[in-house]
């Protein structure tokens, strides 16, 4: 029983991180109809920024975990927010009129640039880094399940972040502007919305969310390496598509669905085929994605497509 609980908890945790990445993809796709594939690597930058902040604060003498956490999150979110906005300003907006495949390719390449830059220029960047364990590590029993406080905090933090973004999109004036741009950029401009500012803000928002996911990922695994972004990016992209691009609920559902697939894979595969290496769980998850794409090409909550000829 407790084992199943552990699996579910692990799945929830993964799902939360995936959902946060997927929400970013969906936000970008909403406002500009583009896929920013460097998203995963922006997340990785966020994690490294958090790590740097923590190291710097320890060096200065600030050792209180709460302050460190706060500094970590603020620095990571701030830096990646600026990075995201810069990417939008200098790469994605100039390519807006180009074929969509060019944008995808350019951001894929940007992802490589970011990844390689961290690997080459961050001190000892090619090796995995230990991420400081700043959260309380105590645990308590709930029924037959053993819950760790730090994981619970991470889960709640993720939930709060997603809920916050959701609240902002649906309830505030800025969110209204984002939704207006997403619906029809030209008309939004006619209504006096500053198109570029909204786009840049959306990219900063999505990237900040990714940075938070990156820090959470680091805190959860107590480790971060330069390659973490590629896989998380692909998974987040897959999750966003599973749920249907441009739809925030879809992205969240997609994130948890993908995590469920992965957990299911790691439980079911050894049960069906004994002695199969656990590394096959990623193979299983990606196979599932490909099959899913063949079955429901535009995701669960389909994007409305109509084309002006």
């Amino acid at each position, binding site marked *: 029983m407790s084992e199943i609980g552990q699996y579910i908890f692990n799945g929830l945790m993964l799902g939360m991180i995936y959902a946060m990445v997927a929400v970013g993809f969906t936000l970008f*796709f909403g406002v500009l109809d583009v*896929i920013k594939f460097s998203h995963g690597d922006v997340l990785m930058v966020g994690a490294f920024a958090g790590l740097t902040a923590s190291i710097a604060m320890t060096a200065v003498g600030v050792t209180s975990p709460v302050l460190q956490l706060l500094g970590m999150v603020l620095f990571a979110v701030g830096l990646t927010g600026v990075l995201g906005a810069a990417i939008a300003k200098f*790469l994605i907006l*100039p*390519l807006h009129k*180009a074929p*969509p*495949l*060019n944008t*995808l*390719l*350019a951001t*894929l*390449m*940007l992802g*490589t*640039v970011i990844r*390689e*830059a961290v690997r*080459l220029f961050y001190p000892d960047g090619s090796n995995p880094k230990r991420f400081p364990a700043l959260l309380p590590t105590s645990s308590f029993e709930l029924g037959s399940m053993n819950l760790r406080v730090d994981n619970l905090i991470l889960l709640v933090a993720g939930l709060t972040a997603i809920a916050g973004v959701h609240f902002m999109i649906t309830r505030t004036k800025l969110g209204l502007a984002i939704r207006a741009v997403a619906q029809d950029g030209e008309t939004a401009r006619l209504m006096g919305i500053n198109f570029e500012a909204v786009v840049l803000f959306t990219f900063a928002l999505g990237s900040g969310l990714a940075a938070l996911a990156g820090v959470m990922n680091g805190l959860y695994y107590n480790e971060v390496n330069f390659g973490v972004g*590629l*896989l998380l990016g*692909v998974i987040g*992209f*897959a999750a966003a*598509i599973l749920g249907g*691009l441009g739809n925030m609920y879809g992205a969240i559902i997609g994130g948890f669905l993908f995590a469920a697939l992965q957990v299911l894979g790691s439980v079911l595969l050894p049960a069906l085929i004994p002695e199969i*290496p656990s*590394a*096959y769980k*990623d*193979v299983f998850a*990606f*196979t599932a*994605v*490909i*099959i899913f*794409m*063949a079955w429901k*090409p*535009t995701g669960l909550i389909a994007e409305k497509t109509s*084309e002006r*000829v």
Partner: protein
Amino acid sequence: MSLTVAAVAMTLYVWMFLHAESQAAVAVLVVLAASAVFASRKLGATRVMAAAVAQRPGLARALSLAGALVLIAAFHDSHFVLLMLCAVLLYATACLGLTVQFGYSGVANFAGAAFFGIGSYATAIMAAHTQIPHVLVIVLSGLIAAVIGSVLITPVLRTRGHYAALVTIAFGILFKTFIEVNDVLGGPQGLQVPGMKLFGVSLNDGIEIPGVEISFYVPYVLLSLLVFGLVYALVSALERSWVGLSMDVVRTDETAASTFGLHIARWKVVAFTTGNFFAGIAGSLYGMISGFVAPNNFTFSDSLLMLSIVILGGLGNIAGLIPAALIVLVLPEKLQFIQEYRFLLFAAMVIVILLFRPQGLLPRKTRIFFREEAPK
């Protein structure tokens, strides 16, 4: 006449480039090439050249072939240079496949290295465990790559743009993870590939000519050149024919294509399968030449490196693939200090090209069906 001069000059340049040992010499040569390109563009020599090539395409091809043969003859005793030439030719062959997919029909394939890898692995297994003649093994490896690729056809066809891209990206990562965890396929260590036997003669034994030392890579380079030449001829014939025309229409406007009665799905399938076939063939031969295959040669980054070659050469212009492959593959080997930074460098280069010169270094020309219409 101008063509011959240019061909001699280019062959000489590539010879010097491959020959250059010191970092400074290579750097000088790179600067030289850059300024030569700039000067010829300013003086209009580029236009004269392009017109000459358009006038005498046969001569241009014959000269390129002659240049390649001269280079092989000049480096007949140096293993390393010949191995690099093999890599350039075979990567260019795989990129010909990607050009058919990306450049002609607009089918996204972000798993080029995976299909290349399927070719290598299929060859490793077939050559080690069966008695199939090796020429046939190469063709079969290409077919296997195409057949495995056909698994992706349904999701790729049912989706467009980003969605199709995701499918191939997922496949590329899936492939690498799969061979890495699969013990039968050697896991992370990879597999040995036996050297090639051609009509009972093992190519690894090399050729003996008294008095001249000849590297055993020479036959391999010639074979790579042959494969590249065949695929090149096939792809350029394809581009000139109604097949290429249909693919172009499908890429530029699907709605218009279907209004004119073109079967969009059919052309995409044809392009995707042929492209993977070419990548598989190239991978197969490459596996035999390097004698060894490992998952780390077929990562997502390698797929992106292949795409860099395609974009750098000018999307859809197959003549640009060789110079692009030379830049992407040989330059890092020559300038040791950029070896470590090559992924970073070429990714950045592609971004710059996409932003400022999306047509690539050598843009694709409009096809000319009648020689008389060629710009004089």
